[in-house]
């Protein structure tokens, strides 16, 4: 397992029960769905649909936990709680921006891990 700054593959490793195929499938799914969810979240934020913003954050929270991104799990939870409750919405744009930039940094590590698994 590689030494990464943003991701931790130990939970996914545990869930995979020795199946490389499963890990590849999960990483591919994560790399595809996360940018889509961030884009949808930003779209909902622009039209002020905070409940939908919260809904996307709710789903992303679980996905981040699979790749060991605990800070992102906490950040998603905050966005989720504020969005669904439609409270302190002024804080949400900055949180989404932080979430996106951190994801982009983690994306490199995820791709590297995926590449390793595919060539194993």
């Amino acid at each position, binding site marked *: 397992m590689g030494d990464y700054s943003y991701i931790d593959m130990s939970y996914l490793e545990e869930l995979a029960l020795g199946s490389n195929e499963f890990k590849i499938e999960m990483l591919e799914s994560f790399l595809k769905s996360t940018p889509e969810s961030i884009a949808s979240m930003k779209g909902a934020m622009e039209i002020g649909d905070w409940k939908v913003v919260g809904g996307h954050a709710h789903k992303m929270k*679980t996905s981040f936990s699979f790749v060991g991104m605990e800070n992102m799990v906490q950040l998603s939870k905050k966005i989720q709680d504020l969005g669904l409750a439609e409270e302190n919405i002024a804080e949400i744009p900055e949180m989404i921006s932080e979430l996106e930039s951190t994801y982009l940094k983690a994306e490199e590590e995820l791709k590297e891990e995926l590449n390793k698994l595919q060539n194993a």
Partner: protein
Amino acid sequence: MASKRTLVYLVDDDDMYLKTAVHTLSQNRSFDIKSFTSGEKALASAKKAKRKPNVIVLDYFLNTEESSAISGLEILKQVKQEKLDCEVIMLSGQENIDVAVNSVKYGAYDYVVKNKSAFIRVQNDIKRIAKQQIKDAEASKLRKFVMILSVMIGVAVFVAVSFVIDPTFYGTWPENAPDFEQNAKDKAQTIQVDDTAPAATDSTSAEHDEAEEIIHIQNAVGR
């Protein structure tokens, strides 16, 4: 239950969570898994399927992204209304007392928070449900058997008692019915008559010899 295997429906609009749940629960060889991304699809399948699910593992927030989608709680209510005879385990991404209370109030078997131990808990819940359903099915079979046996014994006792009280209870013998007693006597007499058969046979044999002798004389005269 027709099958000893447990049919589990997994319902979650989160693709990654659904894949993980399928992968994890499929490790148990006594589970058959079917996955659905919406409660509507799962409910439609459960209604029309010949083999009904034993357990439905349902995400509470199925409409977080798609607001028109039916929520997990609403699906739970419909499962109970339709009397689908299956247990529902409610999953939720957040620890929320209202979610837990609502789930139990509307008949969920358990409420499980999607944390790292969630799959173990869900798996244990499914095993417990399957065990209970097998016990219930056996008890139901036994109840049916005892009921049928009781009815049969009741009928037999009634027939016997009513016959003892009044032997003509089931009606008298019709006048033109065959007289089996007389028939039996006639048959016995016939057998007695048959006992004289050897004498008759001797007589027939003598007549036969006599006829042969006449033919023999006629032939001699003819010659």
